[in-house]
């Protein structure tokens, strides 16, 4: 058991993956000598060399486009997109090339590519550095999308994503990079595409992922003080969704609140609400409620604490769910 920040847990996970398979490459802007702007790849170039930890030209489409070629040659590229808002120049390569290659080759060509994206707000950054683009990728057939929320998951999930023969968009909650927890590097991890109940409760289910898991847990503790029992599910996988633990929780509580930083309109919450109503309609005591970013562009950082769902907004939704 080692105490690690989420960022360091990722570094350990990446190191493990590189040791296990010589075909694993890391590529991105500033990932080499600097170790990445968040230091997630710190020390890896020194130990694995410039051929395996590649400081790329400053071109996101180039990072993903060349990763496609490397994957076709038998490599397993792990691409770092420096910030969420910079993934869009690579959007065509991700959506039209990476996502579709296995399909259009009738299954002959695999794309074992991991696209690491530090996502979400809360760090007081300038524009384009605080976005939550997960729904755009979850909407794209051919991609898999996961989000880690704590150091242990960060350590294991990044290794599992690298081992996957499918392309995985790997979302890292950047505001939680510096939070520490014990990481057990020996315990067998849960499957990559599984969701998990992280706090048991009986009155309301809160579904969250990435940075919002901590917020949801804090809300659950606060609700507990007012004798409302909140169950929190860490979704972990956004595409495919793992509905079984979600539906089991819904059948227990009958009330659901989905929390994410991304805008509510057509976000993950919309998909979850639809699936829950299709699969557990008679178990519901209230409509599925959503708490998320407003349907505006991400605001200047002086306003972000109001834009982002916080403990009070989650509790407000919990109360509204209970009022039905």
């Amino acid at each position, binding site marked *: 058991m080692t105490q690690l920040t989420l960022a360091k847990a990722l570094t350990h996970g990446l190191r493990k993956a590189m040791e296990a398979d010589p075909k694993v490459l890391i590529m991105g802007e500033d990932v080499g000598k600097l170790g990445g702007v968040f230091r997630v790849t710190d020390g890896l170039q020194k130990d694995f060399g410039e051929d395996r930890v590649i400081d*790329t030209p400053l071109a996101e489409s*180039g990072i993903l486009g*060349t990763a496609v070629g490397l994957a*076709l*040659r038998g*490599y397993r590229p792990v691409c770092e997109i420096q910030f969420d808002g910079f993934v869009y*120049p690579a959007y065509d390569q991700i959506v039209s090339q990476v996502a579709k290659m296995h399909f259009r*080759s009738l299954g*002959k060509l695999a794309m074992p590519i991991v696209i690491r994206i530090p996502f979400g707000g809360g760090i007081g950054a300038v524009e384009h550095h605080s976005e939550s683009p997960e729904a755009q990728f979850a909407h794209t057939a*051919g991609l898999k999308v996961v989000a880690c929320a704590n150091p242990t998951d960060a350590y294991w999930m990044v290794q599992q994503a690298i081992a996957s023969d499918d392309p995985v968009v790997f979302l890292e909650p950047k505001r939680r990079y510096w939070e520490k927890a014990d990481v057990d590097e020996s315990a067998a991890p849960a499957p990559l595409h599984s969701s998990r109940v992280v706090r048991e409760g009986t009155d309301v289910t809160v579904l969250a992922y990435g940075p919002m898991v901590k917020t949801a847990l804090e809300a659950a503790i606060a609700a507990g003080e007012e004798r409302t029992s909140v169950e929190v599910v860490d979704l972990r996988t956004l595409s495919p969704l793992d509905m079984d633990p979600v539906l089991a929780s819904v059948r227990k509580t009958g009330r659901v609140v989905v929390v994410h930083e991304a805008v509510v309109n057509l976000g993950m919450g919309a998909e979850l609400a639809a699936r829950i109503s299709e699969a557990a309609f008679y178990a519901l005591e209230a409509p599925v409620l959503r708490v998320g970013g407003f349907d505006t562009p991400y605001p200047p950082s002086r306003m972000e604490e109001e834009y982002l769902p916080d403990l009070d907004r989650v509790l407000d939704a919990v109360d509204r769910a209970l009022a039905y």
Partner: protein
Amino acid sequence: MSNDGSDSLVQLLTPEGERREHPVYRCDLDDQAIRGLYRDLVLTRRIDTEATALQRQGELGIWASNLGQEAAQIGSGRALRGQDHAFPTYREHGVAWCRGVDPLRLLGLFRGVDQGGWDPRETNFHLYTIVIGAQTLHATGYAMGIQRDGAVGTGDAERDAAVVAYFGDGATSQGDVNEAFIWASVLNAPVVFFCQNNQWAISEPMERQSRIPLFQRAQGFGFPGVQVDGNDVLACHAVTTAALQRARDGQGPTLVEAFTYRMGAHTTSDDPTRYQLREDLEHWKLKDPIARLKAYLIRGGLIEEAFLTELAAESDAIAQRLREGCLSMPDPDVLDIFDQVYAEQTTELAQQKEQYAAYLSSFDTSPEGAPA
């Protein structure tokens, strides 16, 4: 400004079929090999003609003709070694032929049966890429893989490999192509950028893409650019052979601009009479890649009537096989698409398949197919 760059154009065979010497590039092919190129050109054109006819008869949804570009494709395609890898656009039917891709497989894509039914791992010929220029980055990444495999600059002709990226004049305006140039340059990747400048991006002429001849762009990126007569199969072969060898030797990328002309429409859905001048077409007909090689071979006594008769018969046989193969191509089963999305199938997609299969079988009234 001149976009034909005629002063620097590498030409080894004139439109009249006369051999020319060049101070740097020379044709090292023997007569037998040149006859082989002629066969490739003729058969490639026949495949194209037959595919266009199949589209006109409603058997293909669309076809992108490579009429007029056969020499650029065959010359470069025959310069590749087995271990080299090619990344085509959707018009590289001649290169596909050189890589041993069954032309019937090309038709599958344009008929809507699949999105590329050949195996790129067996042919070292990637699937057609339709998003303009995207494949130049794939080619560059593949070349980076070759570098990491230690298959560059060893001097072992069986081992050293290179990649060729095909694209057109329109693609040179794309960000991906410019990014590929930068990556290949700074990483010294073993890739040849082979641009067929057919002078048209659907209706937009070269002048809308560049104010300088395209091959000159390479200089700004830090690697050599060569302009070759794209209707001269011998020159295309010589220039590509040299560029590939340079890449295999570890000396980095080269841009080859094959200067040619799109003699057909962009695709069968296009109407070039709205923007192309008839005089231009007439002018370029005189530069036809097949006619000039035939003139050379006949004048030099390198082919006899029997060769041409046999080739005509082979050509007819291919056309017939394509036609029959196209008409008898089985329609795909929609239930298969659910299994082709991921290498590791997801539960939700497997469920979706199951649900749709059950829906389909609900229409089946035969005794065996009655719903459970």
